[in-house]
C-alpha cells in the first residue's frame, strides 16, 4: 500500500514537471496583461493578434509545407531504398546501413553546418535547401522502419506468385506491400515528427526570409517575448493532443476490429 502511494506520488511529480510549463503558457495566453505574473482578466486578444500576424502565419505555412513534402519524398526514397538494400548481400547492406546511420547519429549542428557548406558552394540557400536537408535526415527513419518488416516477409510467397504468372509489380502490390505497409506508415510518421520539431538543421540551411515555426520563434525570442507566442503554444499543444489521440484511438479500434475478425 505504501509502495503504491509512493509510486503515485512519483508519477504525479513527473507529470507536474512535464505539464506545469505548458499549463503556464496556456494560462498566459488568456491573460489580459503583458506582465508574466499579474492576472489582468480573461481575453482572447492574443489569439486575434496571432491570426493577423503575417510572420507567424507564413512560418506556419512553411512548416506544414516542408514537413509534408519532405516526409512524402523521404518515404518514397526510403521505401525504395529499403527494398533495394533488402536484396543486397550482407557486405553491401552493412555499407548502406552504415551510411544511413550517419545523419541519425551525427550532431544536428554538424549535419546542418556541413550541408550549408555544400549548398552555398553550388546554389543559394532557400526553401529547396531546407527541403533537401529535411529529406536527408528523414530517410533513415523510413528505412529503419521498413527494413525490419521486409525481413519478416517470406520470400516464398512472392516467388510463388511470380511462378503462377503474376507480374513483379502485381506480386509486390498484393504480397509485399500489405506486409510492409505498417512500417512505411510509422516511418512516414516519424519523419514528420522529426521535420516538425527540427531547429538546428533548418537554422543553418534556410535562406534569408524563410522561416519555419522553430526558427521564427527563435528569432522572436531573441528580440523579446510577444504574448502571441503563448496563444501559438496553446494552439499547437491542442493540435498535438488531438492528433495523438486520433492516432491512438484509431489504431486501438482497428486492432479490436482485427481481433474480432480473427475470433
Amino acid at each position, binding site marked *: 500500500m505504501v509502495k503504491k502511494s509512493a509510486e503515485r506520488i512519483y508519477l504525479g511529480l513527473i507529470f507536474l514537471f512535464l505539464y506545469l510549463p505548458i499549463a503556464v503558457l496556456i494560462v498566459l495566453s488568456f491573460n489580459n496583461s503583458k506582465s508574466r505574473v499579474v492576472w489582468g482578466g480573461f481575453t482572447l486578444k492574443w489569439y486575434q493578434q496571432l491570426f493577423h500576424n503575417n510572420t507567424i502565419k507564413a512560418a506556419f505555412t512553411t512548416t506544414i509545407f516542408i514537413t509534408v513534402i519532405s516526409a512524402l519524398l523521404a518515404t518514397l526514397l526510403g521505401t525504395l*531504398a529499403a*527494398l533495394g538494400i533488402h536484396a543486397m548481400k550482407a557486405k553491401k547492406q552493412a555499407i548502406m546501413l552504415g551510411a544511413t546511420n550517419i545523419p541519425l547519429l*551525427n550532431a544536428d549542428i554538424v549535419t546542418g553546418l*556541413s550541408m550549408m557548406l555544400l549548398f552555398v558552394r553550388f546554389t543559394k540557400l532557400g526553401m529547396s535547401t531546407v527541403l533537401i536537408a529535411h529529406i*536527408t535526415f528523414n530517410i533513415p527513419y523510413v528505412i529503419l522502419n521498413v527494413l525490419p518488416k521486409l525481413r519478416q516477409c517470406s520470400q516464398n510467397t512472392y516467388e510463388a506468385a511470380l511462378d503462377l504468372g503474376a507480374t513483379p509489380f502485381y506480386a509486390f502490390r498484393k504480397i509485399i506491400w500489405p506486409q510492409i505497409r505498417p512500417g512505411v506508415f510509422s516511418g512516414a510518421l516519424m519523419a514528420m515528427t522529426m521535420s516538425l520539431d527540427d531547429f*538546428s538543421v533548418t537554422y543553418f540551411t534556410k535562406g534569408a526570409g524563410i522561416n519555419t515555426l522553430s526558427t521564427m520563434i527563435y528569432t522572436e525570442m531573441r528580440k523579446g517575448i510577444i504574448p502571441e507566442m503563448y496563444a501559438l*503554444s496553446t494552439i*499547437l499543444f491542442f493540435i498535438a493532443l488531438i492528433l*495523438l489521440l486520433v492516432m491512438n484511438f484509431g489504431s486501438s479500434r482497428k486492432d479490436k476490429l482485427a481481433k474480432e475478425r480473427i475470433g
Partner: protein
Amino acid sequence: MNKLKRQFLAGPYLVWIIGFILLPIIMILYYALTNQTGEATLSNILAIGTPIHSKALFLSLKLAFLCTAICLVLSYPLAMILSNIRKKHQNLIVFIFILPMWMNFMLRILAWKMLLSNNGVINSVLETLGIPPLDILNTPTAVVFCMVYDFLPFMILPIYNSMARIGKDIIEAAKDLGAGSVTIFFKIILPLTISGVVSGIIMVFVPALTSFAISDLLGGGKVLLIGNVIEQAFMQEYNWNLGSGLSIVLMVFVIASMALMSAHDKEGGGAGVW
C-alpha cells in the same frame, strides 16, 4: 524481379547518400583542414586548446553529463512504474508522458524562460511563501533544467520499451525460486534493461552536448557551450574554417561517447547504433 535488379531500387538513395551525406562531410573536413586562403593547416582543430574554446567544451561536457544523469535517475523508476501498470491504462499513461515531446522544441524553451525569469511564476510562488527568490535564469542551472525537460522522453521511451519486453513469467519464476525483490532487480530487471539504458544515454547525451539554442536563449549570453562557439564562428564571425575545425572536434567527442556506450551494450540491443 530478381535480386540483382531489385538492388537498383536503392540507386536513387545511393546518389542521395553520396551527394548529401558524404559530400557535406568532405566539405566540412576540407574547411577544417584549410585556412581562409586555402592552405592546409591544423590550426582550426588545435584552436580547441585556446582557453575560451576548451572552457566551452568542458562546460558542455559537464552540463551534458549532469543532464544525462538526472534524466536517467528520473526515468528508470518511472519506466518501472509504467511497465507495472495494468495493460488497460498503459497506453494512455505512456501517451501522457510523451505528449509534451510533441510541443515545438522552441516553445518548450519559452515555457521555461517564463517559469524561471525573475518576475516569473516560480519566483512569485516563492515570494508568497516567504522564501527568497531564485536567481537562476541566465545561469547553467537554468540550461540544465530545460535540457532535462526537453530530452527526458528520449530516456523514458527506450528504458520503458526494454522494461515492457521482460516476460512477467521470468519474474514469477524467480519469485517461486525464492528470490527477493532486490535479487530480482539486480539479476533480472537491470541486466535486461541495460540496452535500453544505453540507447537512452546516447539519445540524451549527444543532443545535450551539441545543443546551442537552449544555452543561447536561457543563458542570456553568459553560458557559452561548444555549440554556441561553433554557431558564432559561422554566423557572426564568418570564420567558417574555425567553425568547421571545432565541429570536427565535437564530432570526435560524439563518436567517442557512442563507441564507449556501445561497448557496454553486449547484446547489441541498440540496433540503430553502429
